[in-house]
């Protein structure tokens, strides 16, 4: 495949950004969730 580095790089960048943002999102949610009682979590 021509230009494989750029093509694979674009996929790695996209999926890497998703994973990093998902990791941060879950981590923040869990940290805050431990400090707030369940009755204040409207999704429960």
């Amino acid at each position, binding site marked *: *495949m*021509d*230009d*494989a580095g*750029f*093509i*694979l*790089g*674009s*996929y790695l*960048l*996209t*999926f890497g*950004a*998703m994973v990093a*943002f*998902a990791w941060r*999102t*879950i981590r*923040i*949610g*869990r940290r*805050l*969730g*431990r*400090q*707030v*009682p*369940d009755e*204040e*979590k*409207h*999704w*429960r």
Partner: protein
Amino acid sequence: MTTTTPTDHGTASEAGRAGTGTRATRVIGIAAIVMLAWLTLFGLVLSPADRDQGEAVRIMYVHVPSVWLAYLAFVVTAVASAGHLFGRRHSLGFDRFAGASAEVGVVFMAVTLVSGMLWGRITWGVYWQWDARLTTTALLFLSYVGYLAVRSLEGSHAQRARRSAVIGLLAVLEIPLVHWSVRLWRSLHQEATVLNTDLDVQIDGLMLFSLFVGVIAFSLVFLWFVLHRSRAMALADSMDDRRLDLAVAARRAETGNG
């Protein structure tokens, strides 16, 4: 003065339950992962090379869904901002949804810009040109970085919501300018292949299907992110309120007015 902090509810072992996930978000997350795997298969293996772009067309299968997601996120931000500003109750739920959506949009607009640069390096021979589409896209990105900066300013939740809602409603007006920049000005960037104004879709069926898979996958990703982030923002606001209540109670106790 005593230092007061909100109570820690639960232990690390309860972290999963204590977070922002529900059965619905887990289902959405799994569906998104499956669709992303399909996208990778179609984008990198099954779809054909393009007559003009060659293999570089494969970048389109992540670039186009990324910009779709960013546009979707910014439109949702505007709709939720309107819900806050014009709703009878001025609900902070709308504000948090707007903020969460803008965050996701900024991340994917950054992905769009960088994946577009990689495509430009192959197709045009340069990473960046001060072309109408690229420049307006960069301005749109910076506008929403500004939106997020305004959200983090000092003030009450209601003040934050009102300020950012106004910006969320103004910034979304840039999207038509970005989309039609390739027609309004002479641009290196190609016109829209699928969502063009002539409604004339000239694209190989497998390429169109790969793009479709990408758009569905990224829409699921958006939904997952926005639900988690808006819930995390609700938790953060709740913590702020409790800190304020504790500080007021401590102050009253100190002055003997409690």
